[in-house]
């Protein structure tokens, strides 16, 4: 069964450093998403992406964040200058169609900012 994959599984970085989290969505899916879960809190939506454009974004997704689909398979989340409060589990998801379709999640990247 096709799966969403994410790399790395864990990343430790210093405050102020840039990080790039990578995702490979399911191959025939067209809609891509990033969510995050700070320890002990809810899973929160960050951004959705379709046809090389951001479709929706939350208040969390400020100018420090960006997303890109650099080639036909990868989908990346970049945090330009990490803060302590960016420490969280970041989940990538993809869906075939947005309207009413299930979002399939990757295993997550645990980001720790020191």
């Amino acid at each position, binding site marked *: 069964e096709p799966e*969403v994959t994410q790399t790395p599984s864990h990343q430790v970085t210093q405050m102020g450093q840039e990080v790039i989290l990578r995702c490979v969505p399911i191959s025939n899916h067209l*809609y891509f*998403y990033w*969510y995050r879960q700070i320890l002990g*809190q*809810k*899973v*929160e*939506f960050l951004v*959705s992406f379709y046809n090389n454009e951001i*479709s*929706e974004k*939350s208040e969390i997704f400020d100018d420090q964040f960006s997303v890109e689909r650099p080639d036909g398979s990868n989908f990346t989340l970049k945090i330009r200058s990490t803060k302590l409060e960016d420490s969280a589990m970041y*989940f990538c*998801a993809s869906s075939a169609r*947005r*309207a*009413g379709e*299930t*979002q*399939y*999640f*990757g*295993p*997550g990247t645990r980001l720790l900012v020191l």
Partner: protein
Amino acid sequence: AQSVSQHNHHVILSEAASLELGCNYSYGGTVNLFWYVQYPGQHLQLLLKYFSGDPLVKGIKGFEAEFIKSKFSFNLRKPSVQWSDTAEYFCAVTSPGAGSYQLTFGKGTKLSVIP
């Protein structure tokens, strides 16, 4: 903005007991409803979903959920739990009626099943 409430933080049951996990959402328009499960060390997996039609939906592993529009609820049930159901369960909602397809999650309910 959409919000989702899950009433139970941690539920502990013995094997063969019946399970019901509560979920309420706030948006009164058209919604799509989901239950996801996260087994220890694994990623979020879809248990079941409701888009339209029969408000009683059946999912994998014997789980079912009932959509009650008047109560803004989508409770998850299983008549007899097994030790392998130990996991965290998340209710989530999208609001296509508001033009939004982002998943809004509840806080999750941790289920521990004692053999």
